[in-house]
């Protein structure tokens, strides 16, 4: 039941905000995946989307502007048994926090990133976000935007994300399925969510998207999954080309899936096998009420390279 993931905190987003659809899709996805709230961490940055964790009954970490992925990385590595989902805005993840966005892809750590893309910084009254196209002038801007946008899908694919999808905030059930697939995928996953900002963005509205969006899965012949290493380059390139499509037709759905890549957890476990047995955060570090788990004799053996036996 999705209601299991609701809190009694009043949701203070603008009426009609796309964020409502995103939270609903997240709650439904968590419920349908039977995730325990106690084993789930929802991590956010700053901005309207930053408040998301407070509206979800699960461990919630509302962090700093752009840093959600960094916090999430520490949580996941300290306890890989947790499901970790980052919810962040376009300014948060692709502006101030873009270094972390890229780094997560490079690691292929098993974290799902949900990117709220409304092309504006809502909470500070509608300045251009990194996804707003050059020449666009939403009503909140005094003059047309003169910076080029970043393409979240193409950036994610080229950064190494192994699951890359785009949904639409108003198509909650479709978005829910994308989020479920992203969480079920092992490795770094991005779900970009197109989302109207009803207050500040009068260009990319519900009406704008209504007639343009189409589902990739309904396209004959579209197969985003890398089924052998030989397919990797071609599937990645096709996803990037597809992500450039923005005009009369705008695709949503799964752009790219590479189930073949090693996750960061697997890479660590290869050289540090204890990591996969007990999560670092759950390992005992003391015994007998306060003695360090490493005895003096074990210390001597561990650091024997540093010890000199004196023969004066």
């Amino acid at each position, binding site marked *: 039941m999705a209601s299991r993931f609701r809190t009694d*905190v009043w949701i203070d987003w603008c009426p009609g905000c796309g964020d409502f659809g995103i939270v609903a899709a997240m709650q439904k996805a968590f419920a349908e995946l039977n995730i325990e*709230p*106690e084993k789930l*961490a929802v991590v956010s940055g*700053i901005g309207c989307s930053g*408040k998301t*964790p*407070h509206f979800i009954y699960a*461990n*919630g*970490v*509302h*962090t*700093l502007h752009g*840093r959600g*992925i*960094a*916090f*999430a*990385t*520490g*949580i*996941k*590595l300290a306890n890989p048994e*947790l499901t970790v989902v980052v919810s962040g805005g376009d300014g948060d993840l692709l502006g101030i926090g873009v*270094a*972390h966005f*890229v*780094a997560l892809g490079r690691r292929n750590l098993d974290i799902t990133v949900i990117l709220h893309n409304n092309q504006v910084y809502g909470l500070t009254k509608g300045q251009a976000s990194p996804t707003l196209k050059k020449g666009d002038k939403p009503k909140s801007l005094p003059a047309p935007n003169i910076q080029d946008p970043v393409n979240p899908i193409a950036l994610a694919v080229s950064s190494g994300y192994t699951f890359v999808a785009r949904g639409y905030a108003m198509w909650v059930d479709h978005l829910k399925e994308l989020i479920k697939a992203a969480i079920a995928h092992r490795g770094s996953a991005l779900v970009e969510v197109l989302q109207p900002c009803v207050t500040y963005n009068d260009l990319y509205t519900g009406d704008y998207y209504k007639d343009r969006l189409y589902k990739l899965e309904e396209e004959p012949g579209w197969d985003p999954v890398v089924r052998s290493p030989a397919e990797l380059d071609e599937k990645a390139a096709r996803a990037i080309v597809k992500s450039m499509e923005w005009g009369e037709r705008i695709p949503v759905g799964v752009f790219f899936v590479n189930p073949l890549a090693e996750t960061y957890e697997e890479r660590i476990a290869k*050289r*540090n*096998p*204890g*990591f996969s047995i007990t*999560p*670092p*955060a*759950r*390992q005992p*570090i*003391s015994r007998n009420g*306060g*003695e*360090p*788990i490493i*005895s*003096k004799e074990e*210390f*001597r*053996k*561990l*650091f024997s*390279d*540093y*010890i*000199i*036996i*004196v*023969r*004066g």
Partner: protein
Amino acid sequence: MEEALILIGGSQGSGIETSSLILSSALVRAGYGVLSNREYYSNIVGRHSYIHLRASSSQLPRSLTYPVDLVAALDAESVFFHFDDVRRGGFLVYDRDLSKTKLRGIISMEPESRARVEGKLKAIGAGEELGSLALALEGLGVRSIGLSYGSIISSFAEKLGIARAEAQRFRSSIVVGAAAGLLGLRQEALDYAIDRRFGRRPALSKANKLLTALVAEEVKSLVGSPLRLDEPSIGEEELLLVSGNDAVGMGKIVGGLRYQAYYPITPATDESVLHETYEALRVEGESLGSIVVLQTEDEIAAVNSAIGAALAGARASTSTSGPGFSLMVEGLGWAGMNETPLVITYYQRGGPSTGLPTRGSQSDLLFSLFASHGEFPRAVISSGDHLEAFYDAIWAFNIAEKYQVPVIHLLDKFLANMVTSMPLPDWSKIRIERGSTLFEANGSVKRFDKSSVVSPRPVIGSGAVIWYTGDEHNEWGHITEDPVNRLEMYEKRYRKLQLMDAEIPEEERAIYYSQGDEDFLLVGWGSTKGPALDALRELREEGLAGAFLQLKVFEPFPARLVSKVISSFKPDRVIAVEANIGAQAAKVVAMHTGHVIRKHALKWTGRPIYTMELVQAVKRLLAGSEREVMSYGK
């Protein structure tokens, strides 16, 4: 001799760090205490670097001083730089093949340094060629031992049956052999040290042993072993040979570190590399745990991912220096706001900005105390030497978890890079205290329950459901801007400072070294401890009895103890000793106690404070000077 001071110079990348490690290991093996400092430029290959080493037969050395008994130079630049660092009656070992090398031919020397060296050469009547300088030094009572490094390499290559070009790789062992010969160090100790370094590569071991023995014999045949050390009387059966980075790294591991994030920066990174080396904690095939070591995309990710790991219950930390800490400051505030146990190990180097990236300073004390906006409690601990740094690394974790505060463990490049012979830590002094951290909990929990100053802290994954936010929050961790909640929650956090102050004994936060008969006081912190204590010993021999107050924890500050000690001296007999220009610790003392320390012995050249310059500075301060600026060292 009771002790020997040695300086080994060579260009960066020429192997002097290995040479120093071998020489130090050999000395420790033979029963001596060793302390060495490495000075180097921000450069990979080609610029001047040197090791300054003190070996003692009677104690584990805690400071360095000049002049030295021996300068052993791998290149001409080292001779030009350091010829005036040798005492009268001391020795210079240099490469005779370079006798015609002129100062102006040394392009790696910075123009400011070259101009100064030119002046010094003129002053002693030396020409600008190395040979002429060696000759002039003889006139000043320094014995110049010119060896032909080329001939040594040739005969070594011949004996070993390798090509001359290959033999050049071992060139840095010439200075090890020369020092060993002059010190009369026994070959077994040297061989042990070489095996320790190259044990897994027997061919290298064999070559190094041969070359060092060859040079030692040649030097002995020329001058004997005039720097022979007394029979050692230190009495340790085993010693660790560690840098400050190593000591902290080991301390953290014993303290239960499970997550270390870092972005490469001098002089902090060696600590994280040690963690990476030992991440599997494998002892005789068995793993005692696992540490996740993450090299992040920047320091912002380092600190924030460490906070994330701490929320999940791992003992988590990051290590950095000034520029990195500058980037971490926002995360520090989040940790404070969310009562998160986070340890930041902060190795100060010369600032501002990139400053002196490979040189030391104590210029970030105030920054570490006040960094980040808003008000929240933190702990700031500084360590006076390697062994303290080991224990303090564990202490930092304990304080962080007991009081749920960010802890800054403040060190500096001096300590980070100095290598010392350190006794094995006393295990009875080590405790792991995790406070009210909960690994098992159930359902909704008020993470910031106001009924106690330190609320029980279920970790994420414990079975609890909890919320965190950088916004002001209620007991559940949800955002609220309610003024009454603000009043109470803000103070709940802030009161942890009082709690720490009440619970952590002041005697552990400030250490008073006194025999009860002193009439002046040095006040110092961090790596000034060693030089201060050694300077006081020398001054006492000259009839000037001074005490030392080591400030160790700056937050919570031990105000009552510090006030009591300082007020027992006349105001004009209290001297702050610091490696900065602003006498920052003195400002903190004034802030907490009202006592204004007016006399300052300061140094900000990026080089360590040496005992002899501190002795001179203290004498002048006691004679009436208000401020003494120390500047010795290349």
